[in-house]
């Protein structure tokens, strides 16, 4: 389920963010409880709690005392703008580095992308 590349709590947070971006989780939807999450993914509940705490810190989730955690109304918008900024540094630039390494020039890429439309 989870890989060894990074702490599980970050992977949990990323997973939930992806669900929000894809629309699988909508605003004010309740997310699974820490214990449900731990039992489902077979991980320590403290690890799950850490992932949720990170999302609360980032304003992606909010807590209702005694009830659970919910998706913040503006979460999707916030995540989109964040990811959009990161898209060029984290996706496009490595791609260009690789393209340069193997001798693909930018025009060729643009052409390819144009065909994808």
């Amino acid at each position, binding site marked *: 389920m989870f890989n*060894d590349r990074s*702490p599980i709590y970050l992977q949990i947070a990323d997973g939930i963010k992806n669900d929000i971006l894809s629309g699988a989780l909508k605003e004010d939807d309740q997310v699974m409880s820490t214990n449900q999450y731990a039992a489902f993914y077979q991980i*320590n509940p403290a690890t799950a709690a850490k992932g949720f705490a990170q999302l609360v810190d980032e304003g992606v989730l909010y807590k209702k005392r005694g009830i659970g955690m919910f998706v913040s109304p503006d979460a999707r918008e916030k995540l989109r703008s964040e990811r959009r900024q990161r898209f060029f540094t984290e996706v496009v630039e490595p791609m260009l*580095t690789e393209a340069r390494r193997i001798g693909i020039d930018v025009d060729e890429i643009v052409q390819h992308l144009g065909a994808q439309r």
Partner: protein
Amino acid sequence: MIELRGVTVRYGSTVAVDNVDLELPTGKIYGLLGRNGSGKTSLLSALASYRRPTSGTILVDGVEAFENPQVMHRTAFVRDTLDVNDSDRVSRVLRFAGWLRSGWDEAYAEKLLDLFQLPSRKTVSSLSRGQKSALGVVLGLAARAPLTILDESYLGMDAVARTNFYRELLADYLAYPRTILLSTHLIDEAADLFERVIILDRGRVLMHEEAEALRGRGVTVTGPSAAVDAFVGDRLVLGEQRLGGVRAVTLDTRLSPSEQSGGEAAGLTFGPLSIQDLFVHLTSSSQEASR
């Protein structure tokens, strides 16, 4: 809180546990990792009052643990060699636990017997190694002891039984939160269950960390020797391999995204290090690491 202060366990001239200091907040699942002979069982035996430490003290919730009824009533320690009599039937072993343990959950014990397909009419001596381990798990979990210590409780279990074991351990911990210490060699299988990890090496605590801090902590770097050398600089190298002009090193470090992209631009590839890999590198003898 469980506190170990200067705990040493000696057998004649052999030092099994060497001046261990540990502070373990209660209510967590701990993974105790160590190679064979690293002192895991001796340390756990002292913690469970099976053996008085040669020196040092163990405090549980502020009181000295050894032979303390308050502490011992609330502790369950299951060793790989079960502390039961071979000629007893499984049913009698469990009945006895029910008599002596105030927190014993008989219905849960029955459920676990079914889950592990343990025949209650069989004698302990006729059980397979895996079934004996399963019996240990039943004794350990159904006791619902606030301090539950399972010492390599998976020995001889097949993959299905081990999966059931991890699943039950976690489910019961979620339903009845308590302190669980799990010693294991099968680190990759169990690592996700741990909140904290303690690594013992030759009787000493090599590391006591949150499991999350260990994940993604180490990294392998592979590439042309010169590029790897330049990247490593004065970082601590845990292990390395060479093949022709290619060098692969294991580093005890967490890389920032910029370090990683910089390295990739220089022709290096990076690989993750699991807790198990990290454990292997940390506990292989220091000579090998520096070679």
